[in-house]
């Protein structure tokens, strides 16, 4: 909210010598963030005067219409100025920058020949003066607001300091001069004069010539006040001071009636609407809309109303979207002679729904959503009528109201509880002082050594109900800087736990492992598209996506079901940027709508829901397993003075996946697989027990091409959450007997996996087999066969093995390999 200091100063006694910075700091201290401080008028130099238009000569034959204007600037002689604007007439009062003056942006004004005339100064717009955004025409001052020859800076109240203040949602009352003045006065510990005091005692003179329009509430409002005025001259000009204050507050001057409503809203925080009373048929009512109704609002939009919309209607039609925007059918125009001024307290949620369902956030709706004091409607509507009568003339014929304001509540606040929550020792008088400064009344003191205070919060502070609410007021009024610093350590918890969970430890070790092996970690957005997921070849459960209702882009409307869906595009981006040796990984959550999209309950609040509801709620949130995936699109060994490098290939991918499984304390078994997005002939599945926990290998050539990755790029993925905690390891005794080493070379069909042969050899060799290594693989045996050569190392715990024994083990091993895989001993 933009607030001019000149307006605040009407209600806050600003101590002499207070700087704009110290005022901003005073706001910040009590919780109002000052986003900017604008100093206006200071950058206008030289003579800026009020002039009267004596003659207007239209100059023809130019690209745009141009006027030569003869002015009286109070110099005792006429002055001619060229002007491109057209929003003024003979006899209007305008603002003239004299030659030699300098406008904001170092805009120097000089006498010069233009359009074959001597232009001896400039007639200014608000924007040229740096006082507003309006550049639709030049400034025309209301008659009577200034004299010819006056300093126009004074007339325009150009010199000011405007604070741009962010108002938090719990402080609706502070969206007003009244609210902010109170806060500033409280922070500066200076006098605050409440504008409401004067208005409260103001008596409006009522002329009962005709009965005032009646009002009632059906729904959605606690309070409404309607005041009727007749015989107005709606075309009257808004006084300059009101117009300037509205403009300084970031709004535009529109017409006398609208300016009055906006002015009162800015002054007091109560949004007000002015209806053309002659357009109201019968009684005004606040009610819910019926779905067939429509309303053309003042922004010119024809709106279809929905059942949750709260409206103001008469006997025949909807007139306004309550608390949000009025309708064209009852708009005050220049011809209007009767006005009904409405001020209400609408339910915040009802207005929020109006604003949301109609996608229409206004100055009024922002205030109503944040709570408008129900006791303010009567006062603010009175203030609006006062101003309206002053400007437009006319007669007040009385009011109608419905609902009721709020009554005072009395709350017991314990000083010791405030002190223990804040961790600070405020005295009773300091606490009372804070309460007074924010508008509370301390109505009594309790028994307990005066520490129990009975407090009545003001009607605009429905948020002050509990001890912690009052504690905040005390702490902020006495500055958070006063709170001391203490550092608590965790006391022994009722529930002991590991320092890091298994998942957290794994995450750390796997991350360090891959980074040390040349991978760069990335963290990618978990968004994808069904089309991309399909292009990568994911099917079945692995393609069941969760869909966002409001994605940022139609390109990424679903959540990833696999890390590679977001990692592969990142690999491609790196390649496109010319980065070398791209090896990247990500650890993150994946989302699979395997059981569809379950609904989660909205439980009650205020007390703990029952245990079953909590358990059901937790269970209804989909599990989101943690997966790690890596892509290698470049070297795993670099070239250098030592020789050639080596590109990562399918075997590296599988090896990394295996090492990750081992790093997590599991031992995996590699099987052939045919799984997207991998190359069907170069993909491995790693199983731990019966469960597939990882896939790895070369990416499918189609995927590589789709993403523009280097040929034969590879990838792996490990479902970390699928790996159980490692079983306890039993290392056994280390035998000191000598090993017996046997080599076997076996010939198998080309489609037999080395792993199946290895497993058969292990099983056949018996328990004295200590280790087995594949040391050679030869695929040029002929007839599509391959040769696999293994070294088998045997060792007994208690004796040296004999040649006969070892030959026997070897024979059993090769026989089982033959039985299982058709392996023949190579001759």
């Amino acid at each position, binding site marked *: 909210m933009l607030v001019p200091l000149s307006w605040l100063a009407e209600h806050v006694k600003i101590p002499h010598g207070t700087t704009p910075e110290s005022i901003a700091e005073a706001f910040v201290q009590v919780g109002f963030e000052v986003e900017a401080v604008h100093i206006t008028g200071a950058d206008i130099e030289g003579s800026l005067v009020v002039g009267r238009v004596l003659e207007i000569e239209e100059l023809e034959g130019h690209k745009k219409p141009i006027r030569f204007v003869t002015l009286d600037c109070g110099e005792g002689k006429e002055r001619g100025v060229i002007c491109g604007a057209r929003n003024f007439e003979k006899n209007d009062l305008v603002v003239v920058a004299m030659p030699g003056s300098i406008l904001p942006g170092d805009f120097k004004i000089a006498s010069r020949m233009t359009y074959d005339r001597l232009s001896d100064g400039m007639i200014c717009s608000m924007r040229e003066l740096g006082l507003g955004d309006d550049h639709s025409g030049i400034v025309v001052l209301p008659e009577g607001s200034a004299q010819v020859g006056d300093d126009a800076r004074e007339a325009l109240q150009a010199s000011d300091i405007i604070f741009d203040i962010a108002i938090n949602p719990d402080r609706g009352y502070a969206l007003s001069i009244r609210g902010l003045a109170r806060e500033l006065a409280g922070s500066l510990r200076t006098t605050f004069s409440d504008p409401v005091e004067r208005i409260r005692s103001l008596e409006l003179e009522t002329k009962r010539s005709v009965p005032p329009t009646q009002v009632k509430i059906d729904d959605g409002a606690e309070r409404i006040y309607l005041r009727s005025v007749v015989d107005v001259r709606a075309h009257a000009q808004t006084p300059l001071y009101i117009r300037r204050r509205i403009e300084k507050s970031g709004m535009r001057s529109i017409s006398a009636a609208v300016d009055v409503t906006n002015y009162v809203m800015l002054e007091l925080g109560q949004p007000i609407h002015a209806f053309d009373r002659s357009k109201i048929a019968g009684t005004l009512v606040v009610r819910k809309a019926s779905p067939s109704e429509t309303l053309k609002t003042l922004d010119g939009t024809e709106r279809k109303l929905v059942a949750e919309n709260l409206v103001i209607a008469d006997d025949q039609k909807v007139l306004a979207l309550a608390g949000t925007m009025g309708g064209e059918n009852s708009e005050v125009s220049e011809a209007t002679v009767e006005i009904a001024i409405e001020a209400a307290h609408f339910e915040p949620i009802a207005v929020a729904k109006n604003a949301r369902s109609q996608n229409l956030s206004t100055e009024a709706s922002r205030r109503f959503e944040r709570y408008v004091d129900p006791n303010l409607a009567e006062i603010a509507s009175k203030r609006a009528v006062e101003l309206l009568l002053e400007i437009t003339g006319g007669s007040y014929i009385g009011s109608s109201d419905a609902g009721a304001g709020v009554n005072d509540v009395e709350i017991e606040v314990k000083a010791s509880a405030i002190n223990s929550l804040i961790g600070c020792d405020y005295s009773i008088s300091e606490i009372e002082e804070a309460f007074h400064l924010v508008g509370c009344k301390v109505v009594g003191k309790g028994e307990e050594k005066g520490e129990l205070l009975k407090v009545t919060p003001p009607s605009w502070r429905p948020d002050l109900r509990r001890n912690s609410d009052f504690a905040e007021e005390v702490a902020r009024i006495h500055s*958070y800087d006063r709170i001391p610093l203490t550092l608590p350590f965790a006391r022994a918890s009722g529930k002991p736990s590991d320092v890091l969970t298994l998942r957290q430890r794994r995450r750390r070790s796997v991350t360090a492992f891959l980074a040390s092996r040349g991978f760069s970690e990335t963290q990618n957005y978990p968004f994808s598209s069904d089309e991309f997921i399909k292009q990568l070849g994911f099917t079945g459960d692995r393609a069941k996506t969760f869909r966002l209702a409001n994605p940022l882009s139609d390109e990424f409307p679903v959540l990833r079901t696999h890390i590679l869906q977001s990692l592969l595009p990142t690999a491609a981006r790196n390649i496109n940027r010319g980065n070398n040796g791209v090896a990247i990984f990500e650890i993150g959550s994946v989302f699979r709508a395997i059981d569809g999209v379950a609904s989660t309950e909205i439980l009650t609040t205020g007390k703990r829901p029952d245990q079953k509801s909590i358990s059901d709620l937790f269970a209804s949130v989909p599990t989101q397993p943690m997966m790690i995936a890596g892509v290698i699109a470049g070297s795993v060994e670099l070239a250098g003075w030592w020789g050639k490098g080596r590109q990562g290939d399918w075997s590296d991918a599988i090896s990394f996946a295996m090492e990750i499984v081992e790093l997590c304390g599991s031992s995996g078994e590699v099987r052939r697989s045919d799984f997207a997005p991998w190359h069907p002939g170069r993909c491995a599945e790693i199983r731990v027990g019966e469960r597939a926990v990882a896939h790895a290998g070369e990416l499918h050539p189609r995927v590589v091409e789709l993403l523009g990755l280097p040929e034969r790029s590879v990838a792996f993925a490990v479902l970390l959450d699928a790996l159980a905690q490692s079983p306890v390891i039993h290392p056994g005794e280390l035998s000191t007997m000598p090993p017996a080493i046997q080599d076997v070379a076996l010939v198998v069909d080309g489609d037999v996996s080395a792993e199946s042969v290895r497993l058969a050899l292990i099983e056949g060799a018996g328990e004295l087999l200590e280790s087995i290594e594949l040391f050679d693989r030869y695929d040029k045996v002929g007839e599509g066969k391959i040769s696999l050569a293994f070294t088998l190392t045997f060792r007994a715990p208690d004796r040296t093995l004999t040649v006969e024994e070892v030959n026997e083990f070897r024979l059993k091993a090769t026989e089982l390999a033959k039985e299982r895989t058709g392996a023949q001993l190579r001759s």
Partner: protein
Amino acid sequence: MKAEIDGAQIEATQALTLAGDLESLKLARISHLGDRSTIARISQSLGSLDPSLKAPIGKALGEARNQLNELFEKRLAELTLKRDQEVIESERVDVTLPLRRTPKGGIHPLTLIDQEIADIFIGLGYRVMEGPELEAAWLNFDALNIPADHPARTMQDTFFLEPLESNLVLRTHTSPTQIRTMLTQEPPIYVICPGRTFRSDELDATHTPVFSQVEGLVVDQGISMADLKGTLDYFAKKIFGDEVVSRLRPSYFPFTEPSAEVDIFFNGRWIEWGGCGMVNPNVLETCGIDTEKYSGFAFGMGLERTLMVRHQVADIRAIVEGDVRFSRKFGMGGR
């Protein structure tokens, strides 16, 4: 005979001394001290000598032999050292050659700072809690005192799941993990809740729709705002350095009362770092915590913002785009 011994000794001394390498030393030893040397011959003839000569000649011979053996050992040591030095010299390599054969990798700085923060708080006795990114709306909003249609809900631009009736959202903060913790554990509770969070902001230099947070939650007897202030000041000094000053400023969050923004004075200016406050009693009550007995504080910071401030990263896109050059700069554990 004595003269003969002297002569042989002189010759042998000369030969051993002059031998320039191990091979010639070995040959000199064989010819002057070996079985066919003059000294060996005299030694063999010692038995046939006149007994009166035996002792003096034997003594001279023994002395000569000892002296020569000593010389040999000395020369052997010298020449071995010489040979070793020559071999080692010839094997000298340039150890300054580029050596790295595996490409350089790197841990993402978000991970590094996440670990750093976890370790800071583990040191204070906290535990690290994690929760799901796709979360129940009740846990993300209602339980945190953010009712439907409250203006505070629109403060956080939320990603909703289809269908809307599922009441599933991408969590807008890690606070639902705080609620999960309070619903499943009894106080005292000292936890941090790090993780990825989501808000529907377009990506630009300072905003990203997916970002990381760390939140802290303490619920215990007698916990005060002074505890919150002290904890955040300690945290700020650990992350930004001991010279950093922190302050609290009044603010508003539905889930805390009183609420505050925490600022740090870093590199000559005040920087908004995060939000915090005393846990709103409504939130504690929803979680079944006795507000007569317990109070608590909570805080939350953006990790991207923390990194940007500390490491002077001007554009948040460097953090989120996954360019390998970025992570590589942080290596295995730089800060």
